[in-house]
């Protein structure tokens, strides 16, 4: 009895801050890129690390290495008694669908896809809206009348980035050319900076002077190429402005860190809700990065245009078409 009291006291003292009514046992299953991909998965990692630092609550994690492991990892985490599990990436949707049905008492937050179950929270992003905004900036920064896009693996998600970007460019100047390339067709396409750099260079040779890289770690090569050759680039997912100050025009932010942080924090506070959370410009889930690293590259007109487009998107005057709605992009 005394021992039990002692354990409780120690537990209370260890769990900082003690304001939270109950502990939670969180877990995360990263996708194939791995948690240090400098992009999507790493955004999640940053979000949950912030949660860990603030609350002192440790989380379990697993990095998936093949298709079959996803379901296995989620089931393993659920069985281990975790009560909130973040599944990172659209590819985990079928696995979440299966495992969440088996463990109705465990909550799942799925990032980047939708599963309709009472214990699943699906967080998706309107990447097309953020890409639209960086498209505006690219078009206004371009002097040659031609801009580039380097995508990662050729999947609908990346096409949605490209499609939103193109719409943003054409909103400024319908005549402007958008050169598009993808880094590949295998998952290796996400981690090939050499190829990202080569594609950016070929786009510069064809007349583009701004390149938007939405290609995971491969995009780092595109940014490097732009910095080396004196062109402009646009980063993606997290704020990459600091990588090459003076060359990175801006970054298209996708706040997966916020989504992951909120999933854990809401669980802790008991406010976690199932259902679909669709984060766009209005919810500040996507947007452009402006900081001291790219300040010198921006013009007042550019900032005004982005601001007015942001307002127009929020109040519905501009509707950015989502490629994924019917797998096509308007011309």
């Amino acid at each position, binding site marked *: 009895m005394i021992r039990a009291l002692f354990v409780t006291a120690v537990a209370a003292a260890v769990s900082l801050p003690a304001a939270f009514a109950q502990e939670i046992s969180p877990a995360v299953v990263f996708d194939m890129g791995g948690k240090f991909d400098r992009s999507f998965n790493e955004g999640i990692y940053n979000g949950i690390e912030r949660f860990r630092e603030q609350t002192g609550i440790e989380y379990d994690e697993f990095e998936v290495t093949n298709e079959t492991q996803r379901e296995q990892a989620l089931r393993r985490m659920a069985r281990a008694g975790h009560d909130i599990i973040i599944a990172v990436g659209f*590819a985990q*949707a079928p696995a979440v669908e299966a495992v969440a049905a088996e463990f109705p008492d465990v909550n799942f937050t799925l990032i980047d896809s939708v599963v309709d179950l009472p214990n699943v929270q699906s967080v998706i992003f309107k990447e097309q809206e953020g890409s639209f905004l960086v498209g505006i900036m690219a078009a206004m920064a371009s002097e040659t009348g031609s801009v580039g896009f380097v995508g990662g*693996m050729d999947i609908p998600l990346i096409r949605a980035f490209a499609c939103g970007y193109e719409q943003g460019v054409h909103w400024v100047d319908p005549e402007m050319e958008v050169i598009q390339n993808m880094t590949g067709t295998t998952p290796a396409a996400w981690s090939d900076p050499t190829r990202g750099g080569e594609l950016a260079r070929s786009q510069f040779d064809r007349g583009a002077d701004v390149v938007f890289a939405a290609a995971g770690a491969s995009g780092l090569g595109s940014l490097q190429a732009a910095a080396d050759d004196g062109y402009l680039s646009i980063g993606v997912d997290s704020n990459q402005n600091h990588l090459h100050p003076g060359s990175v025009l801006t970054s298209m932010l996708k706040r997966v860190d916020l989504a992951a942080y909120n999933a854990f924090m809401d669980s802790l506070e008991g406010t976690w809700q199932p259902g679909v959370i669709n984060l766009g410009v209005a919810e500040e889930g996507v947007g452009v990065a402006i900081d001291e690293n790219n300040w010198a590259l921006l013009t007042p007109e550019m900032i005004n245009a982005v601001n007015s487009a942001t307002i127009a998107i929020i109040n519905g005057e501009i509707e950015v078409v989502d490629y994924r709605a019917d797998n096509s992009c308007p011309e």
Partner: protein
Amino acid sequence: MAGRATLPRWVDIGLIPLINLSLALFVSGIVVLIIGGNPIRAVGLLITGAFGDGQMVPHGEAIGFTLYYTTNYVFTGLAVAVAFHCGLFNIGGEGQAYIGGLGVGLVCLYLDFLPFVLIVPAAIIGAAVFGGAWAFIPAYLQAKRGSHIVITTIMFNFIAAALMVYLMVNLLIRPGQQSPESRAFAEHAVLPAFHEILGAIGIEVARSPVNLSLVWAIVACVFVWLFIWRTRWGYAVRTVGQNTRAAVYGGISPANTIIMAMLIGGAMAGFLGLNAVMGEHHRLLLNFQLGYGFGGIAVALMGRNHPLGVFLAALLFGILTQGGGELAFEMPQITREMVVVIQGLVILFAGALENMFRPRIAAYFLARSERTQAAT
């Protein structure tokens, strides 16, 4: 080479791989020690990961996953082994498996008006035809044009990936979803998993992806053994593999034999699609073949291109894949990259360095057999 001929079989396919494996595990242990882990615990976790501990991971589930991975490695291992007998280095298992899976997927998606008993053979044929077709082009180029098969097959892996992405993203994707995946197959158009079969006759087993494809993998092993050692075609394959000029002298057409060996190899790799697409995922998706094609090379090397050896090596790789995954769960300092390092060491010792001990072991057995002969 003289030593190889006189080595007892059990030494060739049993003892030497075992010694190489032990050495690989020993070196892995040192690596684990350097990064601050306990190697004994790591090996323990690897083994309980692959076979289950009965608590966190039920035995049925862990063994099921191990056997599921094993099935994949058997198919790609056989794909490499058959080509090896013909003197060809088939690096294209990855692409052949990918396209073989496409064949299975197309059958399951578009021929699902057929009943189960007909759709299974149709899927088997689909896998063999598509996988074989993907191997045929490099084989033809090698046989008739002399383009080196290593180059062409590896290029065909990339072409397969590009083709699959095109098909999945543009044509076969279920509309209105993010992930490039087809619709799920009809209920009768999938291979039942063992836990379902055993559950139906009243034996409760934890769920796992191992399915009827495992039976087909064993059939494939027997088929390859029969083909290579019990048919004239197999004899032709081995002759071309060992000495093309002698084969020509003996009236065997190397070109036709090369194409035949690659067709069978491609079909074997294609069967991976049965296991992964029809048995496990129940839908067509991207990257279900990732890594098994290349793993198959190591499996064939380790299994000495003998179907039995391939099966045992595939089992080992199944254990490493499943146990390695569990290891990464339990020991945070062992990342997934570490698991790849351990697997790589096994491949290094079993494949590249397999001749390190062979001469010594061969000399020992040679001396021993001479002694016994002298005694009699």
